[in-house]
């Protein structure tokens, strides 16, 4: 399956079928800091992902200036 990642933006190929949870483990990513999007739908961690799926792992954490936190 095609997996789109950010920071830096890139697409990688991963062999399916695979549980979303195991994909996180394989890529060494923290669940709390990401969302998994298949096509344009959110999926939960126990979802099975297949070779024909278009997957995006989207980071959800944003930074900003430490002291002023005026980023938002």
């Amino acid at each position, binding site marked *: 399956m095609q997996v789109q990642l950010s920071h830096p933006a890139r697409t990688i190929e991963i062999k399916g079928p695979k549980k979303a949870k195991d994909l996180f483990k394989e890529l060494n990513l*923290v669940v709390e800091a990401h969302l998994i999007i298949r096509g344009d*739908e959110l999926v939960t961690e126990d*979802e099975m992902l297949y070779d024909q799926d278009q997957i995006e792992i989207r980071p959800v*954490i*944003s930074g*900003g200036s430490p002291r002023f*936190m005026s*980023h938002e």
Partner: protein
Amino acid sequence: MNCTKCKIRAVIDLPRHNAAFCKGCFNVYVHDQVSRAIKSEKMFKKDDRILVAVSGGKDSLALWDILLKMSYKADALYVDLGIGGYSEVSHAKVVQFAETVAAPMGAVLHVHTVEQEAGAGIKELAMLIHRPTCSTCGTIKRYQFNRVALEHKYDVMATGHNLDDEAARLLGNVLRWQEEYLDKQSPSLPASLDGFAKKVKPLFRLSERELAAYSVLNRIDYIVEECPMAKGARTLLYKEVLNRLETESPGTKQAFYCGFLDKQRKPEASPTTMAEKDQAMLHPCSVCQQPTTADVCSYCKMMARAKTHSV
């Protein structure tokens, strides 16, 4: 995984609440958390006029969306910082949201363009005055936000700070014991005599991941890329550490930040310390005379039990 409430397929799981939700139930959950935040911190009333600071990111656009859907009177301010492509894209996303979602609900978008007033974008401006870009940015945003709030007579200004923002900031302040900043970390800061409008953070009960999920589920088109100046901020490190803890032990972030708010709300704790309380309750063990709060101390009880078992 199925929705905890209505049993159809879930789209997101929330380990810290031991729940998973479908889109409909998740939206109810989000609105409920915001509503609790508004009430518990007395942020604003139904007919107050609110000015939301929007950046084009997920949190601030989600905040605007949520307040409008909860039928609050919420307008927004966007400050165009003039940071090349980043500002162009974020500006376009804000305008698109304003036109397609906010305007039909009667809300207005104010825009302040730094370049128009200062003659240069934020980066050039910061270089000119020899100050870091982010602090220049902070000063400008705070100033413009307050100016628009006062000029247009808004009752309150709202920002999209979420649970992760507040927990990370608290961690930073606690690590360095910056107590003078702790007082300012309330999600609701009253208006001050010197002309600052009231400031609130209605999203403080929702995590960053929940807000990103809300935006994706409700088709809010936000800018995913970071402001290019944000790289390497210490906040990111604190958030990363907190998210590792959260993954191992769900609920950590909320316990940390909301526990802090509870403590602040409570009137001064009684002056008796733990040690003093212990002193008052201690007396000699009836078997060995060492101090204990019970009749027989736990050591003697343990030994007594060991003897009965060994016979």
